[in-house]
């Protein structure tokens, strides 16, 4: 019984939150890695792209809520999500047209594009704060739990409860669907393969009749979709605050690099590696250990390796360790 309780406590406090967080990071890292693979630079504006897409979704969610439209137990935000994606697509295509395209034509080096993306970060950050303000915004509605701790305890008779939030369930399911779609697209469709070809060898793609501008456009469209979905899921799970998206940049980059920059499978693996290490290292293990150990050995402290304030440090340490052993990340060899 104690063993089961320990497992449930572990699931409840570590596995479920880390799964949700990992899915969000993976979606974010996929966007970063796609841009890295196709446009060849690290997009510092990705966090703010997520914030923008999420903001448009939040605004439409409020509109729908004011009209009284809802999805019943599911959050209304899911209904507004396609509109958020469209808004984000518009923004990214416009940015590419006005800003990035010029530098592509100049054959500017990646580091210049990074500096450009810093400028874009400022602008997007300004726009988001200008429109919705810097504060926390709530937009989640619908049923709060798929399984609440109390129902679980009543059902099983265990002392520990397992709670799964609706948003966590939606996050994981959406991530699985999106990732499956993306991989199907990249590996099975002509357009997807042409993106991989362009990522592999730009000049040869040109010689094969692949239109670079079209590849770039499709990349931005996909990235807009990924960023908005990641941003909305994160916002539903935690809350929407522009600044937190900017701060997601480090764990997202860490995920993409840990997995091997430019590699989509790596981005997903990296997202979960980072999420699970963050949660396990900052979780207070006392509860789980109390169930597992004989009473005499019960831990006196919280058995927390690092306080939660050092979450970022954990992602960074994992990144460093991986790079020391595998300088190109966990998955290298297969480009986008």
């Amino acid at each position, binding site marked *: 019984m104690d063993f089961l309780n320990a497992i449930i406590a572990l699931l409840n406090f570590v596995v479920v939150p880390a799964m949700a967080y990992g899915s969000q990071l993976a979606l974010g890292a996929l966007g970063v890695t796609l841009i890295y693979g196709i446009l060849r*630079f690290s997009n510092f504006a990705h966090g703010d792209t997520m914030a923008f897409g999420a903001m448009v979704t939040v605004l439409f969610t409020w509109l729908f809520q004011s009209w009284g439209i809802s999805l019943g137990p599911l959050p209304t935000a899911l209904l507004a999500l396609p509109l958020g994606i469209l808004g984000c697509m518009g923004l990214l295509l416009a940015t590419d047209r006005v800003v990035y395209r010029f530098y592509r034509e100049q054959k500017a080096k990646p580091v210049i594009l990074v500096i450009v993306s810093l400028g874009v970060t400022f602008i997007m950050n300004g726009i988001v704060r200008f429109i919705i303000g810097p504060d926390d915004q709530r937009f989640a509605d619908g049923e709060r739990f798929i399984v609440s701790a109390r129902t679980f305890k009543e059902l099983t008779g265990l002392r520990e409860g397992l709670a799964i939030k609706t948003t966590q369930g939606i996050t994981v399911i959406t991530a699985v669907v999106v990732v499956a779609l993306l991989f199907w697209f990249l590996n099975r469709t002509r357009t997807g393969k*042409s993106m991989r070809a362009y990522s592999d060898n730009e*000049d*040869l793609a040109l*010689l094969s*009749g692949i239109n670079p501008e079209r590849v770039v456009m499709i990349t931005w469209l996909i990235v807009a979709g990924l960023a908005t979905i990641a941003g909305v899921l994160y916002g539903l799970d935690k809350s929407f605050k522009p600044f937190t998206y900017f701060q997601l940049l480090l764990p997202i980059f860490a995920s993409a690099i840990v997995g091997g920059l430019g590699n989509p499978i790596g981005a997903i693996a990296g997202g979960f590696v980072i999420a699970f290490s963050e949660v396990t290292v900052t979780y207070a293990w006392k509860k789980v250990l109390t169930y597992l150990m004989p009473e005499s050995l019960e831990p006196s402290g919280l058995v927390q390796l690092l306080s939660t304030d050092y979450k970022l440090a954990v992602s960074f340490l994992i990144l460093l360790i991986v790079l020391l052993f595998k300088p190109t990340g966990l998955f290298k060899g297969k480009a986008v």
Partner: protein
Amino acid sequence: MSNDAYSDRGNKDLSLGDGSKMGTAQPVKPGGAAFASPGGPFLIGEDMTGGYGAGPDILHDCTIAVDRGEIAVIVGPNGAGKSTGMKAVFGMLNLRQGHVRLDGEDITALTPQARVARGMGFVPQTSNIFTSMTVEENLEMGAFIRTDDIRPTMEQIYDLFPILRDKRHQAAGELSGGQRQQVAVGRALMTQPKVLMLDEPTAGVSPIVMDELFDRIIEVARTGIPILMVEQNARQALEIADKGYVLVQGRNAYTGTGKELLADPDVRKSFLGG
């Protein structure tokens, strides 16, 4: 370089970006149109002058051409502009002067993609396969512009290069040098080109494989596809050539049939080792 406003100042930071797979081509910009210009050989780059970007000219009044049913070979010392000439014909760099004509049309203003669509196929000297993709995907990408059924063509390629059929689900980057060259030629043939351009197809392969590749190229030529080819192995290449060009410093030094050039004492002395 410090005089280039958008340089990276030697930055090699992989966490910022990876420019190693960035294209080096400076393709003709979209928007240009072709116009009728009848007469002349099937494919000709005529009086071409140009170089990369704002750099110095590499080609000076250079002309290379190939006609139906022919194999034309370009030879010359290192740095003679042979590869540059091929790229110029394919629209991979902007010409300052000169024209490219294909099948009675002036295509100087067309983008490389548009030239592919008009039936030109090109196998560059290096980086001529998609290393991370399977052999079959390489061939599919070769046929990117086609909308009809590509399977018969793929079967033809597998018949031409049987080893590729066995390795079709393997990543092309894992193949041997000779096999890679076969993938590269196969990729270019997938468009069913009306003319095929090869830039040193035998570079870096063993003599046996080289002979085999030459045989295959002759086989392709026999199907009626004109071939314009740059070769290091001047003697062997000129032996199979209907037409030969010797380039020196971006200029036409000697032009003639393959046999004529092989017989020319000057050419023999300077380029064929006596």
